[in-house]
């Protein structure tokens, strides 16, 4: 073996052009990102000029006032000044490039700033109520709108949210993932129909899902609003989302893994159970968690179905059962400042819940199907080592002792 390898190396049949370091001309690498000091000077100089100009125009030269008008004037004059400064030593192409970069950057700053501000604003105003421990441990049963924040809380709404989302998950997860498995592993004409219908249902406005449950269940059958009705409304809304995202995740499972499993003679079921689902596990968990976050946060389906109560109700089958988003909505309908503060507190709790779910989903779902964590890889390595040992022992038992030779790959694995 070793000799023939040597021979082929010495007598190559084709000559490949080889590039050595000496052939490549030296030159500075052209950067498309990053800034030179001159560019930074242009940027900050025109910013300063624009602020000065806007301040001068406002109040001194022109009869204008108001912070937003000031901002608009400052921004426009900043763009003009910046374009002029760049123009002093660059052509028009580059001026356009710089101005557009500034515009793109401002869009990003405005958007991300606004979104972060919305979250921070809610959390800050909510902290007033959240600083009272009773806010999380009491209900509003014995607290009126005029009571201070040290009385009453939203425990009933938290419990209601948890019960409703649990019922919704018990229905959605098996059915949603089962449907996604059906779409990908069984297929056929009916599967295409199922896919089209569930895609169409993602367009169903959530208030219409609530209206459906209100008319079909509450008006026609139970005659009262209940936690179960709210859970069903959430299910109708969540189901298409979970089916669609689980479908996308299962489609990402490499086809050759399935083929390898079938080639080993396994049935469809064992392929799905031992190959497809474990490979897609993290993606499926992410799909379910993101669906849960949507389901928890949506107000409109529960607005029509769950009913409003100030007391704790743990029975989903009878009586109204309020949930967090609806509780927020109910609190801020009152003009009392303490009730509004409670509304912000409940919104902050809801926001914290949703953000936690999102971060868990992000931590679990950052990986593509088949990509393993360190621990999983180590476990897989140990399993294959055990298998190898087993095979070696079996081979030893069959072969006479003096012919035994440990397989070469064993050392590689142990190393």
């Amino acid at each position, binding site marked *: 073996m070793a000799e023939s390898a040597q021979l082929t190396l010495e007598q190559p049949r084709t000559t490949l052009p080889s590039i050595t370091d000496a052939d490549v001309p030296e030159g500075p690498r052209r950067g498309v990102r990053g800034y030179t000091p001159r560019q930074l000077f242009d940027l900050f100089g025109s910013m300063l000029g624009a602020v000065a100009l806007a301040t001068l125009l406002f109040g001194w030269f022109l009869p204008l006032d108001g912070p937003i*008008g000031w901002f608009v004037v400052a921004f426009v004059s900043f763009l003009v000044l910046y374009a002029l400064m760049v123009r002093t030593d660059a052509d028009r192409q580059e001026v356009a*490039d710089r101005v*557009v970069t500034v515009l793109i950057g401002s869009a*990003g700053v405005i958007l991300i700033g606004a979104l972060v501000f919305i979250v921070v604003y809610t959390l800050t105003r909510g902290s007033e109520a959240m600083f009272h421990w009773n806010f999380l441990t009491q209900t509003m049963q014995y607290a009126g709108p005029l009571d201070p924040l040290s009385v009453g809380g939203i425990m009933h709404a938290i419990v209601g949210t948890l019960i409703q989302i649990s019922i919704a998950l018990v229905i959605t997860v098996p059915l949603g993932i089962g449907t996604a498995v059906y779409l990908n592993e*069984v297929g056929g004409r009916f599967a295409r129909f199922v896919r089209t219908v569930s895609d169409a249902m993602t367009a169903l406005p*959530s208030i219409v899902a609530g*209206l459906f449950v209100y008319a079909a269940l509450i008006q026609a059958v139970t005659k009262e609003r209940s936690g179960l009705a709210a859970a069903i409304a959430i299910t109708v809304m969540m189901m298409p989302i979970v089916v669609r995202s689980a479908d996308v995740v299962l489609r990402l499972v490499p086809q050759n893994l399935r083929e390898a499993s079938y080639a080993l003679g396994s049935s*469809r079921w064992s392929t799905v159970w031992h190959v497809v689902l474990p490979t897609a596990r993290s993606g499926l968990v992410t799909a379910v968690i993101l669906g849960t976050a949507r389901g928890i946060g949506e107000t409109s389906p529960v607005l029509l179905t769950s009913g409003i109560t100030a007391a704790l109700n743990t029975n989903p089958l009878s009586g109204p059962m309020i949930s967090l988003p609806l509780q927020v909505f109910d609190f801020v309908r009152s003009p009392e400042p303490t009730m509004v503060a409670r509304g912000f507190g409940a919104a902050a709790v809801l926001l914290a819940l949703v953000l936690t779910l999102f971060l868990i989903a992000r931590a679990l779902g950052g990986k593509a199907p088949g990509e393993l964590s360190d621990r999983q890889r180590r476990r897989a390595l140990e399993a294959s080592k055990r298998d190898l040992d087993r095979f070696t022992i079996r081979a030893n038992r069959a072969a006479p002792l003096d012919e035994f030779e440990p397989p070469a790959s064993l050392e590689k694995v142990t190393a």
Partner: protein
Amino acid sequence: MTLVLDEAGLALAAPDKARAINVLPGLTDRIFRTVAYAAGGITVAIMVAVGLFLSLRASTALRVAGFSFLTQRAWAPEHQIFGVGAVLFGTVTIALIALAISLPLSLGTALLLSEVVGGRLRGVLVTLVDLMAAVPSIVFGLWGVYFLQAEIIPVSQWIATSFSWIPVFAVTNADGSSATDASAFTSSAFIAGIVVGLMVVPTQTSIMREAFTRAPIGEREGAYALGATRWGMIRTVVLPFGTGGIIGGTMLGLGRALGETIAVYMIISPIFDINWQVLKTGSNSVSALIALRYGEASDFGLSALMAAGLVLFVLTLIVNFTASSIVARSRSGAESDG
């Protein structure tokens, strides 16, 4: 393959035939197939039931109202006078204002994330934008009512006085004189549109960003090699390749804006008339109408609300299907050989 020769020496067709693959699924497989089929069947049954139920109940009201359901502005089912003319107008107005706010922001941010920033910062910002897509709409509604409303009214006043020659921006009192009082500017379609716009921006941004990062690297480097600036490269490579993503993302955002309930319901003061002056108090939307009127509705009133819901559903369905077909087509066509 063995050839069988006859006496004349001619080759006959080979006698081997393709072996019939006769797969008889085992018991577990048959159970698995049945269960999977049942899961798909139940899901579809639920969804079709929702659709059928809505259509059936809505048809009662639609039969009474006839075609005027789409144009009638008043909502009084008890007097048999009802229609979605005004609320549909309000829904579309709010959605279009939302689009006018969200399109430049999401386009700019998507370009920023795909072309300008890099490394760790990009990862952080992408996560942040995705996270914002999960923020509940009631939080946006609270922010709109308790913060934005007070801050935006001076801007509304400024637009109304400076651009009153554009009919949409003018704000007039009942007698036709222009209104300047702050109370004429509260609870308008403009404020609701801004809040809904911010709500849909994250969805739009992530779809556009995905489309932009798919622009082929070969063409990008080609543009740079020909001496293009970054903007030149974006204009000639990224934007043409990402057109489908821009249109599709925008329309998916539009679909969500049309169906948004709670934030709109909290901000607007409902009216049943077509209000062209977007900065002026008063607007309406189909979902806000349902939230407002379901409680007091009779059986027939409920059927009328279902008809309104059905119209909204059909509208978002058309928007969503157009969007997803545009996104899908752009994906398959945008790959290059590079």
